[in-house]
């Protein structure tokens, strides 16, 4: 907002123009005239024929027989076109796997090459590094993956563009990602955790110490270092620190006392007494939506405290049928997962599938 904050009462009174707001009240002749003139630009195209929708079941490997023959025909046709192209171009692809890079501001550098002015675009290939100084911004785009806005002071590397896993390393700086690749395909490796895209849009920051922060605006993100994992849905954030990994995620509208106590609990408290004190603050300040935080705390607190967290979480979201206190206290993973699915965020089976699929191939947090 650029103006008007200094006179909120005047503005509130002036906003009594209900006709502009919801079409009620006395019609404003000037606005009526604007509506009449501008109405000619209104969208009135009929609904188009949309192609068939691939249902949301993502990992369906066998087609029904009636779909099998058209699918096979398509595969054969694509293979034939591919073979012809291979023969015509000697097997050299026109475009190596990578991201298109464009300069948004200043002069980003792709390795030693400066990107700016008339020559303001290039391509980031596997193994290459993109750097922006404090005056530069860049944009990465890959049609089948998504778009990344790169803020000033950022250094990132493209590690992998393999089928099913697209991986970059963010050594420092800030990126805003908008990903349309299937969940789990796009991974960002940071010095203290890796971020796995499970949805749509998030911002990831890494400072010079290697500490990171992810803030999700749409969908959800998984943050992982070795066995420690955090899930961050839209509206939530999560801090990560070198050698510790991801902290406990929290909704950004939680109270400052809640967030401060959680940070101390995750990264600073060195005695069980301190941890107990900060945990008590977090539990006392929790709201129903902070079930996100409490669910994560179940596996991060000592056993005596776990029963307390269990009870508080159960008050907000009762455990589903078949999930028992005994099971949760011994950190039974299937029971934890079923409770998570009842919290109203996203289905954790997407994440578990990702873990199984990339077991052994999954990247670990990078080291500079």
């Amino acid at each position: 907002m650029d103006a008007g904050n200094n006179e909120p009462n005047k503005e509130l009174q002036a906003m009594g123009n209900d006709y502009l707001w919801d079409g009620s009240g006395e019609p404003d002749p000037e606005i009526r005239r604007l509506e009449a003139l501008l109405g000619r630009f209104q969208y009135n195209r009929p609904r188009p024929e949309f192609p068939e929708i691939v249902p949301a079941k993502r990992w369906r490997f066998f087609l029904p027989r009636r779909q099998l023959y058209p699918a096979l025909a398509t595969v054969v046709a694509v293979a034939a076109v591919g073979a012809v192209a291979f023969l015509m171009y000697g097997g050299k692809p026109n475009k190596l796997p990578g991201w298109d890079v464009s300069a948004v501001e200043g002069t980003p550098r792709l390795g030693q090459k400066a990107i700016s002015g008339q020559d303001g675009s290039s391509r980031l290939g596997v193994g290459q590094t993109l750097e922006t100084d404090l005056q530069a911004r860049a944009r990465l785009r890959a049609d089948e993956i998504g778009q990344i806005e790169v803020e000033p002071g950022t250094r990132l590397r493209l590690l992998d563009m393999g089928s099913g896993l697209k991986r970059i390393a963010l050594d420092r700086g800030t990126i805003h990602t908008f990903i349309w690749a299937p969940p789990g395909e796009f991974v960002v490796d940071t010095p203290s955790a890796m971020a796995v895209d499970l949805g749509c849009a998030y911002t990831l920051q890494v400072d010079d110490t290697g500490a990171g922060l992810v803030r999700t605006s749409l969908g959800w993100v998984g943050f992982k270092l070795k066995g420690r994992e955090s899930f961050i849905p839209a509206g939530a954030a999560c801090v990560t620190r070198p050698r510790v990994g991801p902290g406990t995620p929290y909704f950004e509208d939680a109270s400052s006392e809640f967030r401060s106590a959680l940070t101390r609990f995750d990264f600073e408290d060195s005695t069980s007494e301190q941890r107990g004190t900060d945990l008590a603050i977090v539990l006392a300040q929790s709201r129903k939506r902070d079930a996100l935080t409490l669910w994560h705390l179940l596996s991060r607190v000592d056993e005596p405290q776990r029963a307390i967290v269990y009870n508080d979480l159960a008050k907000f979201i009762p455990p589903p049928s078949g999930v028992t206190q005994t099971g949760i206290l011994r950190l039974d993973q299937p029971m934890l997962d079923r409770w998570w699915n009842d919290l109203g965020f996203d289905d954790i089976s997407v994440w578990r599938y990702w873990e199984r699929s990339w077991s052994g191939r999954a990247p670990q947090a990078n080291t500079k």
Partner: protein
Amino acid sequence: MSTGSEHGFSLLAAGLGGRPLGEQFAHDLFEDTPLVSAARDGDRAAFGRLYDRYARMVHGVLLAKVPLGEVDDLVQDVFVLALRRLSTLREIGSFGAWLAAIARNLAKDYHRRAAPEDQLTADLSENETEHPLTSGDHEGAAAAILDAIRSLPEAYREPLILRLVEGMTGPEIATRTGLTPGSVRVNLHRGIQQLRERLSPNSSRGRPEQERP
């Protein structure tokens, strides 16, 4: 007659930043949820109904950012992309915000690829000798007004175009785009003030310079 403070209070109570005015559209969102679920399960008719509900919003978002002649095709592109990516939408209730984000992104992408001479206002009227609101040339006046709206700061363009071009109400804009009613109301109000200034015959700004999104 109410006092100023009573007036301010009643505006707040009526939903400046809160719910009541938006409630008339809340049932739309409840109806959207099963439609989005059905579309994700492969129901094309359900996706078609979502198109009917959201096409004007997508059109308005794009019209605020790209040349008029490109908008209709980009609307189709947005829905085709959304259709292909529907299975990745995690929060069904955020369908409108997700769709608006796709539209804004495609608009950015359009500008990234567009030739430098392909200006936002290239297809609009150059005739500004008369005041647009009193001009007899309705087509030229409409183009000049649209041009003026698209020269406003980005935060004001979308709500004004959705309100004045697409005929959506403020609560509907908030519901469809996922923005808060308070921010839509403030941006509509401030936007219309700035538009009046730009359209004023005494405006010193002359023909506004186009700000690229």
